[in-house]
């Protein structure tokens, strides 16, 4: 029967796609974590693919141009966008995170060109793995700088 043939063909494709999706998801899943969560999980977080976000501490940025090794520290910020909005927006949350010495911090090492947007109070979103030494080794580094691009009201106003 033609109908069954078509049906079988369709089912086969469906099965293949489902297999592709699930096996690929499993192979490349990255866990979103905040600095607090990584600290809390401790040794069991070592070796997992993680996506970590945090506020960059400007004073800690070091770049060794000979080896292209970038080192900096990030402070804990919430991973929940709604929570960040409720606390007064990303710019404010990042600023507070950087100026709060009681926040948990984690050292990040990244090898590669120094990103153009890396500076203090930027939000760093890093993909990589936590080493046994407690340092986060990032393979990928994304940065968001809200101070310049989300500020809705001109600077002149904030002083008055």
């Amino acid at each position: 029967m033609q109908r069954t043939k078509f049906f079988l063909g369709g089912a086969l494709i469906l099965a293949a796609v489902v297999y592709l999706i699930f096996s690929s998801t499993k192979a490349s899943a990255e866990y979103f974590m905040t600095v607090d969560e990584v600290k809390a999980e401790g040794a069991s977080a070592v070796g997992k693919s993680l996506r970590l976000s945090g506020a960059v501490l400007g004073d800690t940025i070091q770049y060794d141009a000979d080896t292209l090794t970038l080192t900096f520290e990030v402070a804990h910020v919430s991973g929940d966008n709604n929570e960040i909005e409720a606390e007064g927006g990303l710019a404010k949350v990042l600023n507070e995170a950087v100026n709060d010495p009681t926040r948990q911090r984690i050292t990040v090492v990244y090898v590669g060109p120094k990103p153009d947007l890396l500076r203090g109070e930027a939000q760093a979103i890093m993909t990589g793995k936590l080493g046994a030494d407690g340092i986060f080794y990032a393979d990928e580094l994304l940065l968001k700088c809200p101070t310049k691009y989300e500020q809705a009201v001109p600077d002149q106003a904030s002083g008055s």
Partner: protein
Amino acid sequence: MFAEFGYGILVVTFLVALYSIIAAIYGATNKSASLVESARRAMLLTFPLITIAAISLIYLLVNDHYEVSFVYEVTSRSMPTYLKITAWWGGQAGSLLFWSFLLSAFASAVTLRKWDRDIEFLPWVIVVCSVTLMFFLGLVIFYENPFTRFWAVGGNVEPHMFAPLNATLFTADDGRGLNPLLRHPGMIIHPPMLYLGFVSFVIPYAFAMAALITGRTDDRWIRLTRRWSLWAWLFLSFGLVLGGRWAYDVLGWGGYWGWDPVEIAAFMPWLTGTAFLHSVMIQEKRGLLKHWNMILVILTYALVIFGTFLTRSGVLSSVHAFANSPIGPLFMAFVATTFIVSIALLIWRWPELRSETEMKSMLSREALFLLNNLLFMSILVVCFWGVIFPLISELFTGQKVTVGPPFYERATAPLFSALLFLMAVAPLSAWGHSTVQTLGRSMWKSAVAAAAITITLFFTYTKTPGALLGFFLIAFILLVTFQEFWRGARARQKVQGENFFTALSRLMGRNRRRYGGYIIHISMALMAIGILGMESFQTSTQGALKQGEELNISGYTVKYRELASWDDKGKGVNFTRATMDIYRNGIYLGVLNPRIDYYYDSQQNMTIPGNRSTFRDDLYILLVDWQPATNMGATFKIFVNPLVNWLWIGSLVFLLGIIFAAWPDRDPAEEPARSQVSRNAGHTSAAD
């Protein structure tokens, strides 16, 4: 003045659109031609109105009106005039207005056509276009108003449209300026191209809905919108390619596509749109898959709105995301409502959309087209899964998990390979019925030649199995397609006694869609060469060099000559530029200048690669860092991107192919009727 004026015009346009909806519905249900005509005129009026509002905004942008918050956000005094104009779509509020502008332009163009015997579609096309237009205008008027101004109220500055009590207008000294990353020519054309593509897909959708509502469920709506779909596809594709080119030239990571959620958001309507372009042919030729085409056009519309939402709302963190904004839920509500209404209409007309014939053979042209559709939909499902997976996993496990580029590469590679294989086989199959024997006879020569090429590549170029499979498929497509051109032209040459090139050009001119499609297949194969080269063979190296030192990579020698740094006061930019001497196997090739531009107003760097492109590979050098005080030492990252140029060459061929296919025929009325074609289909084989 201009701000209030522009805003007032927008409100008027909103009301005009509302009137056109009411008049069109009332006119259609009461069979009042004069009311429908009135709705049509109202629709036509929206375009000049929005144009005036847009001109007001451009006037404010160009003349440094920093009391307007949108102008303050996207321009600065140091920007040249053309950038101030294009800043129109550099921010959220402006780009929503831009969307509305394009939609009213297209809707006007379509209502201006001669309707004659299709007049019953007209009111419903107006309704769909106006509802969409009203939604976007509503967002602009109530939530993302580009005409909002700053007001000083008791020592604070607040953005409002109209003056609050006791407030004085506040004018900032200078604007924040457009993000320097967005000041690249590719980035100036990329959003309008994507938007053109997005917006023009509204038209086929409007006709599809009109067909469902009026019950004219034959393929008339498809024939009427065929060119619209092609142009929409052209713009969307071109927009995607430009975005890739921009990433390659400006983002400085050595690639062109990062499976960023926003890229995927623009890619998803492209997938359904491409499937749609293929499957409408089956309906035209064979009267099959009518439900499916409706589903595809509804999905494309939903994905277009969803894509606009993703690129503009900042729900996903990505390089493209602007600020968070309140319009997200509204977009979701609009997508959900239109989707549910469309599907309800489809279910209502379901019995009338039955297929006229049955699919008989697994290897017939229509069955292979169906397979092509399934593959496109599978890629769509993979993409959609990747985008929503973080939300799903958070919902069910409480843990936010995401998937990165490896997921997409792994899951889509087999699907793309299968599509390449189909691209080679499907053009040779016949409508109605094909067998392994008939297919084998017409393709074995090409298959053998492609295998020979692959074996040659094995000994001379690469031993990677995946890459070899890719090259085999690419060679196969190219050979089969060229063979089709050759066979058609030879046949015509014999019958008509023309010379080969006359025969070829006449043959192509008479079958624009078919041969345009083949040109597009060729371009896809060329683009696949570039993607394969990049994915399989990209190499990179990096190092800190002193003057006169060198780095070696893939036969290239890159020697660091000097570094220069200077200010351009007029532009507010500091340039730092390295000069590199390039050799390949000892032969001097010239100089490359990677540089870093520092924008004082936004305190941001922009890394511009030095790039040398050949058909064989690209040498792509990034200046990473430098030590100004000492011996002018500097750090570089160097990529060799084999074959990537074919991606850009392929995209140019692609443009040619679509333009060729979409170009108006001399007499569009003379389309062969389907009944005639399908009666002959059994015998015509691939020559149809």
